[in-house]
């Protein structure tokens, strides 16, 4: 039983190391791997919207910081390309 536990712990350690290695490769460094796990993964979601779904209407703040408008107000007789992102 003790030997089995040792094997289990060894395999688990190897798997964790491998996962960490993959994360480091994807993120660029161990520090970035930590950043990805700590700050990025909790916020990244595939979402439920699909092609054909009604586009959610959301109220946004204008660049002046005062005015508000809805995404659907920008819908006209042409397709609307929405580009989400941030500065950093």
């Amino acid at each position, binding site marked *: 039983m003790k030997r089995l536990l040792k094997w289990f712990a060894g395999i688990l350690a190897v798997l964790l190391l491998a996962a960490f290695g993959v994360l480091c490769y994807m993120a660029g460094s161990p520090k970035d791997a930590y950043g990805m796990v700590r700050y*990025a993964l909790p*916020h990244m979601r595939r979402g439920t919207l699909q092609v054909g779904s009604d586009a959610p209407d959301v109220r946004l703040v204008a660049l002046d910081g005062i005015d508000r*408008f809805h995404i659907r107000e920008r819908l006209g007789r042409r397709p*609307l*390309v929405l*580009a*989400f*992102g941030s*500065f950093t």
Partner: protein
Amino acid sequence: MGDIVQIYNDYKDHADFLTVYVREAHPTDEWQMKSNVKDDVCYAQPKTLEQRVAIAKDFTARYKFPLPFGIDDMSNAADNAYAAWPERLYIIDETGHIVYRGGLGPFHYKPAEVRQWLAAKYGAVKQGAQTAAASASRASAPASTSSEGTTPLSVPAKSEK
């Protein structure tokens, strides 16, 4: 985002565009990237709407960003509704339905797919003098290190040719 600026310049006569600024992806107090330091794009995660608006203004001013612009409020309603963070692209048709849903950035953020969709509907637009002029106007923007693949709105234009 430079690619989307180019697409905007090429297709703004056929489609409408709206940029939605969402919570920062790599603020100084979270997961800051080396590229942010190199490009001098160093901001803490905004805690107030005023701070978020200030960063958005810095961004549009620095890159002379030409696309119409909206800012997600502090409830992150737009991010929540569109699963948009850190970056994502959608196309909505005239009836209010999603006709293109881009993958989640940075790894699946593919402006070329938006261009492809628009080209299929309106024909391929040769990047012409208008685009060249727009690119020249952005020439003062610092070079990006987009190789890190984590660059939402901050990427200056790059050629798709």
